């Protein structure tokens, strides 16, 4: 500590000689826990890696917290921060209202955009008009976590690749082990992938399409698994139950891995394996997570500084550091092809599954009404699974009652 004033003084003296004063920007993020620590450390590394830009990371509690502050800033006519971490469903509304900077005109944009995986190009520019208001950052897709010890007792070394095969699998696992074969989430993230993999769609032009045959088949298949008694509905305890050997398979984000690993401790290697997400006709997975955006209405100097920060975060070496700690998926192909990255993926079973799914990945629906639609879907699935409502009337009712939402 004692040395700091001296070092600082020295920097000032030297700095006056030949460097511009550094541009200070703020970065509002919404992740706590281990991820929050990693974000703060990453920002520190950036600040030390160059002497043009200083980023001050500000914690906003949650993605909703980021939005709260962003809305307050918009109401005040002064953006809450220069760089915002926005959940994928939140940025389109802010962009449509003209509150985010179009990044496509910034230096080096094209090279960065071209290096993105296809799914992220589509996520960043869903209407393909060339304007981009948010770039992918912490993104993930769901994978299958399974307990090989439990599966082995039912004669399986890995879960089946397709949903239709799951029924027999689940029955056998339940029979052989006495615990639930899998936990199925009512939150429709995994569902999106399953419906797409069956050739169906979640959201149409002006309504939900879950009443179409492809989607109904998915919901019926899942419902049967639950009504057979071999699957349960995912809940706040599911990860703990999985680690404790009380459920054999869970479907969660690739980025859940560090948390599962910490919970499992020494037993991780024997009790946790990762497989790709099951599918119906062809493999498709959804991606989720958050993006980075630059507020509109800040001085150009700060826009450029913010852009430098975002570009730095997307550099392959930096992506690698980030992924090593968080297990998110790489945003760019350049990162995926990095030898060091390949070497990292080979260090543990299943680390590569998220990346291997990227060619089959799709962005989540971008209709602004979908945020609310998600909660309605979830509620309906819970009604079917927990209150034994018949599938088809429940889904028809869901589609009907959400029509006004999607009509606008």
């Amino acid at each position, binding site marked *: 500590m004692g040395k700091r004033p001296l070092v600082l003084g020295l920097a000032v003296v030297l700095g006056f000689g030949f460097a511009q004063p550094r541009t200070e920007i*703020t970065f*509002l993020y919404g*992740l*706590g*826990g*281990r*991820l*929050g*620590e990693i974000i703060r450390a990453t920002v520190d590394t950036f600040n030390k890696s160059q002497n043009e830009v200083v980023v*001050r990371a*500000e*914690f*906003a*509690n*949650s*993605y909703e*917290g980021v939005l*709260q*502050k962003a*809305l*307050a800033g918009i*109401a*005040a006519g002064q953006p*809450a*921060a220069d760089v915002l971490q926005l959940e994928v469903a939140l940025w389109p509304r802010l962009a449509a209202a003209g509150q985010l900077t179009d990044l496509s005109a910034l230096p080096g944009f094209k090279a960065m955009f071209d290096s993105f995986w296809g799914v992220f190009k589509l996520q960043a520019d869903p209407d393909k008009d060339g304007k981009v208001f948010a770039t992918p950052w912490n993104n993930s897709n769901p994978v299958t976590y399974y307990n090989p010890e439990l599966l082995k007792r039912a004669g399986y070394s890995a879960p089946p690749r397709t949903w239709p095969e799951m029924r027999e699998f689940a029955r056998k696992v339940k029979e052989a082990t006495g615990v639930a074969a899998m936990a199925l989430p009512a939150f429709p993230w995994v569902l999106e992938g399953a419906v797409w993999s069956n050739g169906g769609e979640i959201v149409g032009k002006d309504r939900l399409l879950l009443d179409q045959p492809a989607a109904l088949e998915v919901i019926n298949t899942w419902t049967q698994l639950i009504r057979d008694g071999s699957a349960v509905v995912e809940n706040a305890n599911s*990860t*703990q139950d999985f*680690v*404790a050997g009380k459920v054999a398979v869970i479907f*969660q*984000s690739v*980025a*859940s891995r*560090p*948390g*599962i690993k*910490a*919970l*499992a*401790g*020494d*037993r991780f290697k024997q009790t946790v394996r990762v497989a790709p997400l099951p599918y119906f006709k062809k493999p498709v997975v959804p991606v989720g997570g958050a993006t980075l955006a630059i507020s509109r209405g800040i001085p150009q100097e700060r826009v450029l500084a913010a852009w430098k920060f975002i570009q730095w975060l997307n550099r392959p070496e930096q992506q690698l550091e980030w992924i090593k700690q968080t297990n998110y998926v790489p945003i760019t192909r350049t990162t995926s092809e990095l030898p060091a990255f390949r070497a990292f993926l080979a260090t543990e079973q299943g680390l590569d599954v998220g990346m291997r799914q990227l060619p089959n990945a799709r962005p989540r629906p971008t209709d602004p009404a979908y945020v609310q639609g998600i909660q309605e879907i979830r509620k309906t699935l819970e009604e079917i699974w927990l209150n034994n409502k018949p599938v088809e009337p429940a889904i028809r009712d869901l589609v009907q009652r959400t029509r006004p939402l999607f009509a606008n």
Partner: protein
Amino acid sequence: MKGPKPGATARLGLVAGTPVARARLGSVLMDGLTLFVALLFLAPLIWLALGAFKTQSTLFTGPLIPESWNWRNFVDAWNSAPFGRYLFNSLLVSTASTFLVVMTSALAAFAFSRMSFPGQHALFLLALATLMIPGDVLLIPNFLTVRGFGWINSYWALIVPFAASAFGIFLLRQAFLKTPQELEDAARIDGATPMQFLLRVLMPVNAPALSALSVLTFLSSWNALVWPFIATSRDEYRTVQVGLAQFNNLEGATNVPEILAATLIVITPVLLVYALAQKWFIESAASSGLKG
């Protein structure tokens, strides 16, 4: 007052059927019930306190008593955020808010209880109505107001909006209403102004009610979470609850033992305040405004 010696209790209890024995037995049963209730409330906290010493992989599946005591959680929790600063800020903000609430509440309660003026009842209800406004939708308008004053990232933003409390006015009004009128008459004969009477007689006489209000205000200020996020963005002005929130993560990797350790760190000062105030708060409530 102390009860009879244990030996005496046992002896009396053996003489079954007599009223004294029955009373003794009832007393022992009540002691047992008291202990049971205390343990019922404490059990989850015992799990919390023990959990703070465990590792993530033994928290949910390991034995209740940790096999090895993992002090690192406390060190890591303390180091993961500028907790020293947060604690200082929380202490400052909570103490200042508490002082202001006690003062503004006492003043208003005095007017509502010992004066009469036109519109008194309506004004009192208007004050109570502030308790009934859902807070979430006020966040952005209040952000704009505070910003207009230039208070974003300052202690003012964390203190002034909470400097008055309808609950406090309500509580103290009840207390003041019950303070005997003779006290006021005596003070007036001695030539005290109403303000002097309030500060030198009414408030000291109602110390238990004031301390009750202090504890509750301190607690709610200490636990405030949403507003500090809106009104501040720099660590210099952030509070312990912001620090605690930093451990939570909805995307999975949450180090639960570390949360538990941080929770213990954060609640300790509040428990101390409660323990200190408890004497006032409860023991001397004999002359309290809280009495029935």
